[in-house]
């Protein structure tokens, strides 16, 4: 009967043991570079800030290069421990993505976990030095960009789509051979659907300032991108719309213009010979036909002709005849064959050249001094042809109006040079001398006048005054002349009146002329 007692103890003991075994978690080892901020029996492991374990031991590895942290993980978190699960220490950090982990200043550092999706279990992990940019449960896709240099990009730099933040740079490496840089980016959903085969990526870092024949242009993506660098992307209007597969490789262009440049189907190379300075013309400058960009300058060169001892400047350009064709008013039936297209463009160019299409250098922007190649029809240009024989073909050029201006100014200057200024000055001096003489005599004359003529003149003036007085008397108001004149005038007016009466009567009685007035009998 008493044996129940040990039996009870056995049962209870077994129960305790089983309970402990079941509640037991697993022990894992995580390797870090150092144990800064980590403490045994204190530092916790957290998943989405929920405690799932605790550090139980920290020791230096045998090769003294790393620190091995042993952690006990709770039972219900055992399933998180798979091959691609990652661990890192959360501590205050300042990075290009911002400041993170400030809460740990108060609560103490902890180890965070990003659970992977692999089905394989694991109990030895290598801890990350810094938090992963994207955690494995973030929807989106990774892509690869190839660029010449990293620019101002770094891990965490933003990727923009239509100025919205669409993703981040998650890593970069130097290409083997050192020829370029491969950048890995992660585009968040739903933006990843907009990355198609026709998408172009460009560096949107900082301030994009371009100085060209069009002037100075300033472009920025956002304030953040000025500070930390960024990439922007957009799809070409025409192109496939199916989303690109994960890890598709793209080229990272230097700026938006270069990126969004449509792919030219047809490119014809030409060479232009100029004789004046090319200063202000740069590679990539546009070849412009009355405002429409129909080509691009490829390279600038110098040629020295030993025979004449002159220098000429061949400029290689690329023309896109596609743009010249445009929309013809009379649709030309297309034949479709490549040779035909070649011949067709040759014919087109010859045609235009025959009509006076020439290339000249023009200053696009006086502020920047940038030049560009301008194609234009010059009706008065001398006849020339395209030299198709040379490789690349030589396109006729014409010197620019500015050059002419320079010439004329030059000739004026030359003319001015010819004027005998020294002789002229000598004559002028003589003229000045005689003029001086004349002035002297004039002065003398005036003095004379003053002395001699003056009294005579005053006498004449007095007599004139007398005469005027007399006249006044005669013609005065109450002078006899006046009254006589008055009475005379009165008589005249009476006479006039009678005559007018007579006339009136005659008008009424014209027969009175013959018969006389009634009442008057002979």
């Amino acid at each position, binding site marked *: 009967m008493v044996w129940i007692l040990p039996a009870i103890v056995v049962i209870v*003991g077994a129960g305790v043991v089983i309970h402990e075994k079941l509640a037991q978690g697993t022990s894992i080892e995580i390797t870090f570079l150092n144990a800064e901020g980590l403490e045994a029996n204190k530092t916790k492991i957290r998943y989405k800030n929920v405690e799932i374990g605790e550090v139980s031991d920290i020791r230096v590895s045998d090769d003294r290069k790393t620190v091995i942290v042993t952690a006990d993980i709770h039972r219900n978190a055992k399933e998180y421990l798979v091959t691609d699960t990652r661990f890192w220490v959360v501590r205050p950090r300042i990075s290009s993505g911002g400041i993170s982990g400030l809460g740990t200043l108060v609560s103490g550092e902890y180890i965070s976990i990003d659970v992977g999706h692999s089905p394989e279990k694991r109990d030895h992990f290598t801890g990350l030095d810094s938090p992963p940019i994207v955690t494995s449960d973030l929807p989106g896709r990774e892509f690869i960009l190839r660029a010449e240099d990293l620019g101002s990009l770094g891990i965490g730099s933003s990727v923009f789509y239509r100025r919205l933040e669409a993703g981040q740079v998650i890593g970069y490496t130097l290409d083997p051979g050192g020829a370029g840089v491969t950048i890995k980016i992660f585009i968040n959903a739903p933006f990843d659907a907009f990355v198609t085969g026709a998408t172009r990526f460009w560096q949107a870092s900082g301030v994009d300032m371009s100085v060209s024949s069009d002037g100075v242009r300033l472009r920025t993506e956002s304030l953040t991108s000025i500070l930390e660098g960024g990439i922007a992307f957009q799809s070409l209007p025409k192109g496939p719309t199916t989303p690109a597969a994960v890890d598709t490789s793209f080229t990272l262009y230097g700026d938006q213009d270069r990126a969004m440049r449509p792919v030219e189907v047809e490119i014809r190379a030409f060479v232009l010979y100029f004789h004046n300075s090319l200063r202000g013309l740069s590679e990539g400058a546009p070849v412009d036909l009355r405002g429409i960009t129909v080509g691009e300058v490829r390279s600038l060169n110098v040629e020295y002709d030993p025979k004449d001892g002159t220098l000429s400047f061949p400029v290689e350009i690329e023309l896109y005849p596609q743009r010249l064709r445009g929309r013809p008013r009379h649709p030309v039936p297309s034949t479709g064959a490549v040779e035909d297209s070649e011949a067709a463009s040759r014919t087109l160019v010859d045609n235009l050249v025959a009509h006076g299409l020439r290339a000249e250098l023009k200053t696009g922007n006086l502020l920047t001094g940038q030049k560009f190649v301008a194609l234009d029809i010059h009706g008065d240009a001398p006849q020339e042809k395209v030299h198709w024989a040379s490789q690349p073909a030589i396109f006729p050029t014409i010197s620019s109006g500015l050059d002419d201006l320079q010439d004329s100014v030059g000739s004026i200057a030359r003319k001015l040079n010819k004027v005998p200024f020294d002789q002229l000055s000598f004559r002028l001096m003589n003229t000045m001398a005689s003029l001086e003489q004349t002035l002297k005599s004039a002065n003398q004359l005036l003095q004379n006048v003053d002395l001699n003529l003056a009294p005579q003149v005053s006498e004449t003036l007095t007599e004139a005054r007398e005469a005027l007085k007399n006249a006044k008397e005669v013609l005065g108001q109450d002078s006899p002349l006046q009254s006589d004149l008055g009475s005379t005038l009165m008589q005249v007016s009476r006479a006039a009146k009678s005559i007018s009466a007579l006339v009136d009567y005659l008008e009424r009685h014209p027969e009175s002329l013959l018969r006389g007035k009634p009442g008057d009998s002979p």
Partner: protein
Amino acid sequence: MLVIVCPACDLVHRVPAVPPLRSRCARCRAIIQRPAGGTLDTAIALCITALLLFILSNAYPLVAINFNGTTRAATLFDTTLGFYRQGHQALAAIVFTTTILGPLMQIAALLYLLVPLRGGRTAPAMGNVFRFLSHVRPWTLVEVFMLGSVVALVRVAKFAQVVPGVSLWSYALLMLALAAVAHYASPEQFWRWTEKRIA
């Protein structure tokens, strides 16, 4: 009828071989005889119980404390180790003997002596083991340890969260088991069983 002397005052008494009750000395009131206890089986069962409890008491931590996220647990052996690590080896030995070694030796010795009795035999070197047992017995201070740990936990509970472990309860039960064993397997009783079995 037996003639015995009082262990306290040396007074001679005549007493029945197996007393019905606890009898005391006429002069000094010391206990000179104890009545027959339980059966041998009881004693052995209690010993086994005590042994199991002893194992349990050492397998898991006695108690764990939690302060500001840091947890720390201590097993029974950790109390010995604590002193040992701090350079007090003598003290460590004292604690070890009185809390772990003593009880273990007591249980082991008793089992060693009692089990063969069940089979009608006496254990070899019975006398030596018996004497060893009686020397070890006073150095088992399990109950004092229990009270001491209560005092300690009361002090700690002011600052940190105290979580008693399985082993604390099993050690408390061990204390009771050992007390029961001492009652049921007193030296007198043991010799009665021995004589009965041999006879």
